[in-house]
């Protein structure tokens, strides 16, 4: 056991070392070494994670400090690991997807001048994410939380010469600041009221505070646990992109596709879900907080799905689908089905990474054109991408036997069984979401892989339109080219006579490796993970108050039976009709969507403006802060602080300095005099005769 413990520290450390080597010496080293070093680091972390996972399956739990950073006022600030099955599951998922993305990147970023920088960043991300999931205390959790946010920021703005990328990463940064502020307040309240930052200590003491009330604003009383849980969840809302803090995620697609897969689909955005599941002993103490979680999740699941329908940028469709799926996970958290949320997190990590990497492969085949209206019939040219994307889409819409089916159906059922306030709406939202998901997923699938070879007729024409569109929405990022670097300006989009080609093996191998768990993992994992004692002692559910999970177990009769039953259930019918409608609209009668768009211009307008979140933020928060900032700058900074305080004190201090300097006459009897005066002063002060 002890030899396994000494491994723990190396799991995050190896990617960090790789990131440091490649980041610091990337220019000096040969280009290929960037990927070899980082892949070696992540592959080692993955193998070690598998060892740890095996060990955790045997029931071993490690909880201990590795290094004490600071002891202050009776509180210990430590770097420590809590490795149980939940952590081990996350570690395997994170390192596996990260490894796949590393390999994929060799092909995708092949020509990019920032090759080694990119590898350094994604390895650094792996380190941060591992620190986040392995933490045994809130401080390290916060460290990992901020570190993944930082790397995400760096990677969204990876092509830092593009104004849209800079806009997007700034937006992601600012929106996450809002969430992190709530998160930090939550952590502070935990430390202040519960007196510890250590998970185990906090969880064991928390039930004593179940009925504690706090007065935050004089005259009002809140339940302490509700306040803490909601504050922590606000952090999760930022990181896991829940309404209304979701606005950064679609724009984050400005980053290179591999990181969209790794960070903005499979791992980082699920950090919030993981955090809430980890904090289940706290959340179980507050039904109010759970209802809040549930309603936010349900809104996200349904309304973000709608937006996926009208997107034309292939990556944005997948991005909105990610938002919607994150909403599903949040719904599962809200109905106390934490294990289901983690289960969906895991299956989603595989199939969504697959979809993103597939989209990336398509983008490469289309020479960095991302507009689906210019694609079509790609199945002939990119067979592996086609098959794997189909698998990903089937998993996403919840086709029975595919992994997504098990996790998503469990969420829907859990929502159905739940009794807490808001569960009725949530059930409706997740059910309707199934139809929407199926529709936009297969809309994308048909537009990209079937139909006519549209790049032949409309390649450059559409591209110019894109540019016009781009000028209108200067910071709206859905134009096709990925590089504005001059060197890459010559190729984006296929010419009428070019043909798309299948991507190299470094791209297709990860697709295949990700397709395997996308199909099978649900079938094998559902029983132990949801209904066995896999999360025993890790995830705590108060079955009396929140019985959804209990009911779910009651209705479960094996994975095969569930799939069979799934064929006749409402979600499947909805999914199938979604697919059928997509086929009818985009394969059979392409004129219908345009007609609907023309008829329902108001709905289209609302959807096209993403319910106005962006313009509201822009007009209210951004303009408001600029106004406030301008006034504060003018009156506060320039006049009061600069004019009076800073320059005033500087002048005063300068004058005193000159005075003191003049006292330093250089004359020895002055000095001796000063000493005598000093003694005299001390005597008069302290002699009490």
């Amino acid at each position: 056991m002890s030899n396994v413990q000494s491994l723990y520290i190396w799991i995050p450390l190896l990617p960090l070392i790789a990131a440091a080597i490649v980041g610091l010496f990337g220019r000096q080293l040969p280009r290929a070494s960037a990927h070899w070093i980082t892949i070696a680091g992540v592959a080692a972390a993955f193998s070690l994670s598998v060892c740890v996972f095996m060990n955790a399956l045997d029931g071993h739990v490690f909880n201990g400090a590795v290094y004490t950073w600071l002891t202050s006022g009776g509180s210990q600030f430590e770097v420590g690991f809590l490795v149980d099955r939940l952590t081990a599951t996350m570690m395997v998922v994170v390192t596996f997807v990260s490894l796949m993305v590393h390999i994929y990147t060799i092909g995708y970023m092949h020509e990019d001048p920032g090759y080694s920088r990119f590898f350094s960043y994604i390895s650094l991300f792996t380190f941060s994410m591992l620190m986040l999931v392995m933490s045994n205390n809130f401080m390290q959790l916060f460290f990992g939380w901020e570190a993944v946010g930082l790397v995400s920021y760096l990677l969204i703005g990876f092509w830092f010469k593009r104004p849209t990328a800079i806009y997007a990463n700034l937006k992601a940064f600012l929106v996450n600041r809002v969430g992190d502020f709530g998160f930090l307040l939550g952590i502070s309240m935990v430390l202040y009221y519960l007196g510890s930052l250590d998970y185990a200590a906090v969880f064991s003491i928390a039930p004593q505070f179940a009925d504690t009330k706090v007065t935050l604003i004089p005259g009002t009383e809140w339940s302490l646990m509700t306040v803490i849980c909601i504050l922590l969840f606000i952090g999760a809302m930022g990181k896991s992109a829940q309404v209304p803090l979701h606005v950064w995620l679609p724009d984050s697609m400005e980053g290179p596709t591999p990181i969209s897969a790794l960070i903005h689909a499979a791992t980082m955005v699920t950090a919030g879900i993981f955090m809430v599941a980890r904090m289940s002993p706290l959340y179980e103490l507050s039904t109010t907080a759970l209802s809040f979680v549930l309603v936010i999740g349900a809104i996200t699941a349904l309304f973000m799905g709608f937006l996926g329908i009208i997107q034309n940028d292939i990556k944005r469709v997948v991005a909105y689908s990610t938002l919607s799926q994150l909403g599903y996970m949040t719904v599962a958290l809200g109905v106390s089905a934490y294990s289901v949320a983690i289960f969906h997190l895991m299956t989603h990590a595989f199939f969504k990474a697959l979809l993103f990497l597939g989209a990336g492969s398509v983008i490469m085949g289309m020479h960095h054109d991302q507009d689906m209206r210019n694609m079509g019939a790609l199945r002939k040219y990119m067979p592996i991408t086609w098959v794997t994307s189909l698998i990903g889409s089937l998993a996403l819409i919840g086709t029975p036997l595919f992994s997504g089916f098990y996790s998503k159906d469990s969420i829907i059922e859990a929502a159905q069984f739940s009794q807490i306030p808001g569960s009725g709406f949530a059930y409706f939202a997740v059910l309707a979401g199934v139809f929407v998901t199926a529709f936009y997923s297969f809309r994308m699938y048909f537009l990209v892989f079937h139909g006519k070879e549209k790049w032949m007729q409309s390649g450059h024409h559409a591209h110019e339109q894109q540019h016009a569109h781009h000028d209108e929405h200067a910071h709206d990022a859905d134009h096709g080219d990925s590089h504005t670097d001059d060197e890459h300006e010559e190729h984006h989009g296929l010419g009428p006579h070019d043909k798309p080609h299948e991507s190299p093996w470094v791209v297709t191998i990860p697709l295949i490796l990700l397709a395997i768990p996308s199909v099978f993992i649900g079938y094998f994992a559902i029983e132990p993970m949801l209904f066995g004692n896999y999360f025993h002692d890790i995830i705590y559910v108060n079955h009396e108050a929140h019985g959804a999970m209990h009911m779910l177990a009651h209705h479960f009769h094996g994975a095969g039976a569930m799939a069979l039953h799934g064929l006749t259930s409402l979600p499947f019918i909805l999914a199938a009709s979604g697919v059928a409608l997509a086929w009818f609209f985009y394969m059979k009668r392409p004129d219908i969507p345009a007609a609907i768009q023309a008829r329902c211009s108001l709905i289209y307008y609302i959807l096209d403006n993403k319910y106005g979140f962006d313009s509201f933020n822009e007009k209210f928060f951004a303009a408001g802060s600029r106004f406030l900032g301008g006034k504060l700058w003018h009156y506060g900074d320039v006049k009061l602080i600069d004019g009076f305080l800073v320059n005033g004190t500087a002048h005063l201090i300068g004058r005193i300095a000159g005075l003191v300097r003049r006292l330093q006459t250089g004359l020895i009897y002055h000095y001796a005099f000063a000493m005598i005066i000093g003694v005299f002063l001390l005597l008069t002060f302290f002699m009490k005769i």
Partner: protein
Amino acid sequence: MNAIQYDVMTALPEILVLCMAMFILLLDLFLKPSNRFLIYVLSQLTLLGAAVLTTVTHVPAVGYAFSGLFVDDPLADVLKLGVYLSTAVTLVYTRQYTALRGMFRGEFYALVLFSTLGMMIMISGQHFLTLYMGLELLSLCLYALVALDRDNANSTEAAMKYFVLGALASGMLLYGMSMLYGVTGSLNVSGVADALLSGAPDHGVLVLGLVFIVAGLAFKLGAAPFQMWVPDVYHGAPTAITMFIGSATKIAAFAMVIRLLVQAMFVLAVDWQGMLVIMAIMSMIVGNIAAIAQTNIKRMLAYSTISHIGFLLLGFLSASLNGYASATFYILSYVLMTLAGFGIILLLSRKGFEADRLEDLKGLNQRSPWYAFMMLIVMFSMAGIPPTLGFYAKFTVLQSALQAGFVALVVFAVLMALIGAFYYLRVVKYMYFDEPEDHSPIVAPVDMKLVLSINAIGLLILGMLPQRLMDVCAYAIIHSIQ
């Protein structure tokens, strides 16, 4: 107290340093100038040998020797190791500088070793006379060292001032001690402590004595209002000597404060706390504000020392073991920072050119990015910017003062540190944002470059991992002070 009677063995490091200092003095007479390097090596070996002896004879208990005149406790061992290290580093940094200015002679090394001996005696003094003897041995050597470059008018003037004012301060110290002797009838540190504990006879006379002792100590430390000599001596003395005065000797003065105020006169803590508060406030004001008006780095660092001493005194205010440990931590951190800071000045100096004006640092980043970075660390550390050692040092003393309830004082200290940050950051600005006026290459021996780099990087590493050093300080204090 478990008073174990040690024999001469207790003072073995002192005896070694004494013998070697005399041997070097003699050897120098018979040595050809070209073989002077041998003296340097011998001096370094002496320090190394003393360090080995101190470490080997270390026990985590208090031991007395020479009828209670001399004490060997963990605090003494830790502080002595600090003195050896700081002296050895000083010798490394100053070798080229002294060689280029005709000071690379036996006297220099003999005087440095005798001063080291004086400091060791001050650290281990358990009797007012031992303490005074150590102090005078140190002071007399320092006066001579300041005047070593005897044709330089500035140096001789500085030495003269230092001597006269030092004599005055010594007189005050002696006067205070005699008052204490008059009241308690003892000159022994523990004897005085016991006498005071069993009921202070005449509080008025005691405070009178205390004021004079505090004044004498404050002079040695360079705390305001007894700081007037500091800028002039720092400025006038050759940089090599300034570095020595600014680093190792402060450890010895610190030890004396512990012996006299904490160990002998703990009963009067309420009185000396008040005096230290006044001196801390004045030191921080004078140190931080006057430094802004300086154009000479050595003068600036002199004021920086004064302000650091102000912070150091905060550590004593809580009159708790925790506070003394943080003060020990502060003094050791201060010495490391000072060494590195003067090291950079010595590095930039060359024959006939003292790099002691602030302008001389302009554009250092273009001349040598590495040493500009080293100086950046030193300046950040002195200003107390995390994650450097200086931050943690300030943090611990402020924390101890805060625990003792000196909230307003702590706020004031932080404000003063903020003002002080200005002149440290100004150095950084000169190095990184201004054009160099001087493009001559930086020539220095490899060992100096290496030690200097380790020294500066150490400030960064210790700042991030301060726990070990903090543990050592806490250990030394807990096992030495009852």
